[in-house]
């Protein structure tokens, strides 16, 4: 790797000022994506800004009223093992546990997984299905942006110079909710998703009161499958309606051919995994 300047701000305010001053900087947290990109020459930052020393950024807070608030530095291991996340937002623990390997999960952060903006990022379909928002700070203050609006393309986000993701907010889930993240890979561990599907269902008996479906690696950025959701909302669960939702999800996706799989195979997977995820989420909601 080429020579670097290194900055380690102690506060969010200081970090934002440094980001504004050093336009060629990249933020480093766990480093599990950025260091690989630097080694491969895909990223050549003039300096790295290590935010690991900023106090409180690894906090997990939950209240019944406001839901979950994660600091940007919360690791995948912390999400996978947190009792409150396992209990209230199990889909997120599932996703964190499917990302990389134990070694990667011990360093990789939720803020990093978001900001790396890979369409295959495992936590993002879960965050989309949970209707989560990114909490963004800058010298001007704080703003909240739905995760759905956060990405502009592969590796690209809406962050402006001087802005930093400080955390994630996940609204509370109503009673009778269930959520699953399904990931199809060739290898069981340490593999990128060929397709990832997150689904959250809120049930009223066997009626879909509300449902959110999100797809990873199905388009240039992670997407919500809104037509599939609309096909289910307010309807009674049966094979026919789930089939319709799965077809809608395929129609609103735009997967590509890549080394890992053909677009055709990915479309088959989207149909199969959306149907499976919706069924499992509804069963969980019980």
């Amino acid at each position: 790797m080429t020579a670097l300047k290194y900055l380690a701000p102690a506060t969010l305010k200081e970090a934002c000022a440094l980001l504004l001053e050093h336009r060629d900087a990249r933020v480093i947290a766990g480093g599990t994506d950025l260091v690989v990109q630097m080694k491969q020459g895909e990223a050549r930052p003039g300096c790295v800004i290590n935010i690991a020393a900023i106090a409180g950024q690894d906090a997990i807070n939950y209240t019944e009223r406001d839901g979950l608030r994660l600091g940007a530095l919360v690791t995948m291991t912390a999400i996978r093992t947190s009792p409150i996340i396992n209990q209230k937002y199990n889909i997120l623990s599932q996703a964190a546990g499917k990302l990389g390997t134990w070694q990667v999960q011990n360093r990789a952060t939720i803020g990093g997984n978001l900001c790396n903006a890979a369409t295959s990022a495992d936590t993002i379909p879960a965050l989309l299905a949970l209707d989560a928002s990114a909490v963004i700070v800058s010298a001007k203050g704080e703003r909240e942006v739905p995760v759905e609006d956060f990405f502009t393309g592969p590796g690209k986000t809406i962050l402006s110079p001087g802005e930093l993701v400080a955390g994630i907010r996940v609204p509370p889930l109503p009673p009778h909710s269930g959520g699953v993240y399904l990931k199809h890979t060739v290898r069981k561990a340490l593999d990128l998703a060929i397709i990832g599907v997150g689904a959250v269902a809120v049930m009223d008996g066997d009626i879909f009161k509300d449902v959110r479906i999100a797809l990873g690696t199905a388009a240039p950025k992670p997407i919500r499958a809104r037509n599939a959701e609309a096909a289910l909302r307010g309807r009674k669960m049966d094979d026919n309606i789930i089939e319709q939702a799965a077809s809608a999800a395929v129609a609103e996706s735009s997967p590509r051919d890549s080394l890992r799989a053909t677009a055709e195979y990915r479309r088959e997977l989207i149909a199969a995994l959306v149907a499976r995820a919706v069924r499992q989420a509804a069963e969980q909601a019980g």
Partner: protein
Amino acid sequence: MIDGAIPVTLRVNGDDYQLEVEPQWTLADTLRERLGLTGTKMMCEQGECGACTVLINGLPVLSCLTLAIECQGMDIMTIEGVADPQTGELHPIQQAFVERSGMQCGVCTPAMVLTAKALLDENDSPTEGDIRQALAGNICRCGNYKRIVECVQVSAEMMRGGKAHA
């Protein structure tokens, strides 16, 4: 602004090392090239193989994707720190690997032992599934997985005070 070499103190296997590191140096490079601790192996250097695993504050991490400068104040354990520092007596996991041929070419072994140690430190009675899941990020190109899993099972028994030897 910090530019060029930066002084850091790295705590490795219980000893403090004061040295100057360049910001782009990985922990793996620094352990091997500056501290001479070559038990940490570097293979893929992209976070895919797990051979560079060390323990930071007791948890396995990839030293090839961790910058040395980020490790100030953290407790780092490499394979050189696993045996008893006074007597040199092997850790039960090392003992099991020796006695039951847990290694073939040996390149993945330091990382396998460290990841297994982190697992057994938090779960003294792992199932075979727990062991396979914990070691999923450690690739053995000799394909010795069956014996490696057995070694971890046997060493878990030893550590629980069952058998004195593997």
